[in-house]
């Protein structure tokens, strides 16, 4: 079972909203490590809670609507339990809460995001967002390497 789960989510037919999906697809193609499981998905659904519970580290990749277009952020995510309202798609924090409450495991997690500019119909990312993708991928890779180094004190895990 992979120790690190990468979840890139968004709608690939809605321009910048497809950032997470597109990056996850690129990481999936480049990934050769059995330690890393990459899943591109449209949205975070409850059934991903069990998958997340198997991981020691979960990295979410999403496009943000908050901030200045092109702004790249990485923030640690903590489980958010208690009353919440949803139907079948979740926020990263709620997904972690579900993993903790249902399967007894809450992995460490980070959300990598770039603030989007265009959300119209289309498969292309805006130039503003597209320009930041290499940096985002680099940050994801570093986070994985740091985690593996800290956990095992050795080895490099390359995902892109």
């Amino acid at each position, binding site marked *: 079972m992979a120790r690190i789960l990468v979840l890139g989510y968004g709608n690939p037919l809605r321009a910048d909203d497809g950032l997470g999906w597109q990056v996850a697809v690129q990481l999936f193609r480049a990934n050769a490590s059995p330690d890393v499981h990459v899943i591109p998905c449209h949205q975070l659904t409850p*059934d991903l*809670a*069990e998958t997340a519970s198997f991981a020691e580290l979960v990295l979410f990749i999403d496009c943000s609507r908050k901030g200045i277009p092109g702004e790249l952020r990485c923030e640690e995510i903590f489980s958010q339990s208690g009353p919440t309202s949803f*139907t*079948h798609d979740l926020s990263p924090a709620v997904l972690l809460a579900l993993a903790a409450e249902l399967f007894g495991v809450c992995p460490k997690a980070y959300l990598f995001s770039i603030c989007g500019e265009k959300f119209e119909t289309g498969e292309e990312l805006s130039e503003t967002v597209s320009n930041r993708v290499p940096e985002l991928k680099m940050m994801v890779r570093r986070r994985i390497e740091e985690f593996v180094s800290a956990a095992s004190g050795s080895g490099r895990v390359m995902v892109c």
Partner: protein
Amino acid sequence: METAVSKSIVIDPVTRIEGHGKITLHLNADGRVEDARFHVTQFRGFEKFSEGRPFSEMPALMARICGICPVSHLIASAKACDALLAVRIPPTADKLRRIFGLAQVVQSHALSFFYLAAPDLLLGMDADSAKANLFGVLEKKPELARDGIRLRQFGQQIIERLGGKRIHPAWIVPGGVSEPLSELNRDAILSGIPEALGIAERTLDWFKSVMENFREEIVSFGTFPTMFMGIVKKNGGLTFYDGGIRIVNSAGEVVANGLDPADYPEYIGEKVESWTYLKSPYYSQAGYPQGIYRVGPLARLNVADRCGTPRADQELAEFHELQRTAVLSSFHYHHARLIEILYCVERLEQLLTDPEILSKQVRAIAGPNSLEGVGCCEAPRGTLFHHYKIDEQGLIRWVNLIIATGHNNMAMNRAVLQVAKHFVHGDRLTPGMLNRVEAVIRTYDPCLSCSTHAVGEMPLVIQLFNAAGDMVDELRRPDRR
């Protein structure tokens, strides 16, 4: 002199359904509900923008209509394309398509029952809306929440193993499927059957144990005479993939049997109303609106004589005992959904252990041999029709889609009216009233994105209008997704 004033209530958005809609309740001068309408406010237009595309693209294009039941659109579309090719697909391809469809029914029904309906069933119709979700279920009955997640995962993983991805897989193609099933994938899927069967059986047992708590809802949740429609095998057995159309009346008597789905324009009319983007299909021999019928799990079990798998057959026999006539309450859509899950899991095992299932002959190759084709299957929410016309170059010239949720449009409107008449009194809504009005819609598990073929966010509202047409109250819940 005091002027009598009638009023209306609007519920917008309707929550825990797929897509967005609005409900308006119209009150008479005495403050009693006189009329109710379920408005579907989304519009997409897949039928129009696929014109001019090569027909071979249609399955992949049509799968984009919905993120919940793309497989049904793939199947119906591919079957319409098979008709354009005028080919008979290889037997193994037929079986693999069936497996794909059954897996989707499992995951879609699991989503509907465990994620959307279970909060009402477990916490009650008057529960705090902030807790009426999967976390509420988790708090009160964690094993139910866990079962829901595991069961949906089971269905999703079959789709992923066969189609390469969970959402919008393009594995089903005109003439068959693009890849055979590997032994590894077959064995992996089979290994999940015992757990899925266990979940289906214990959830059915639990549902039957709490049904008594909903006596009032059972008699008032869309409990009225309609016809029921679905496809059945030649022996009257339940099927999701192909067969003849059967229609039964509210007494459970067969009105029409063995109708060819390709002839649907001869027996289904489509009425367009100005207040909704959802069309209102009806049985044309009975006229509009008398030709009202329901489709989906409740209808399928009302039209089927048997399931064809041992455990589901036992449950079906018990289900048919609920009423001497057809089972009329839309509340029993939930019950029917669980029986169908059980059937699907049993049927998956039968198909996966078929000696031919690993055959490499899975696709018939041909060019277009017919200029018109109809594909029909049973989607989780009911009968689905795809009808295409092409030109000599194989380019799409005309498309008509009749989606499961559309078939139920008239019935959903009537159900909302019945629930509103029973539970809504006065000119203000209580959360319990609101939830029951929404809950009756949830029994149908409508997929508005599918049925209007919709884009964008249009959450649902309940609005209350007086006799003079003035809005006097409005309840607008935040989008809870």
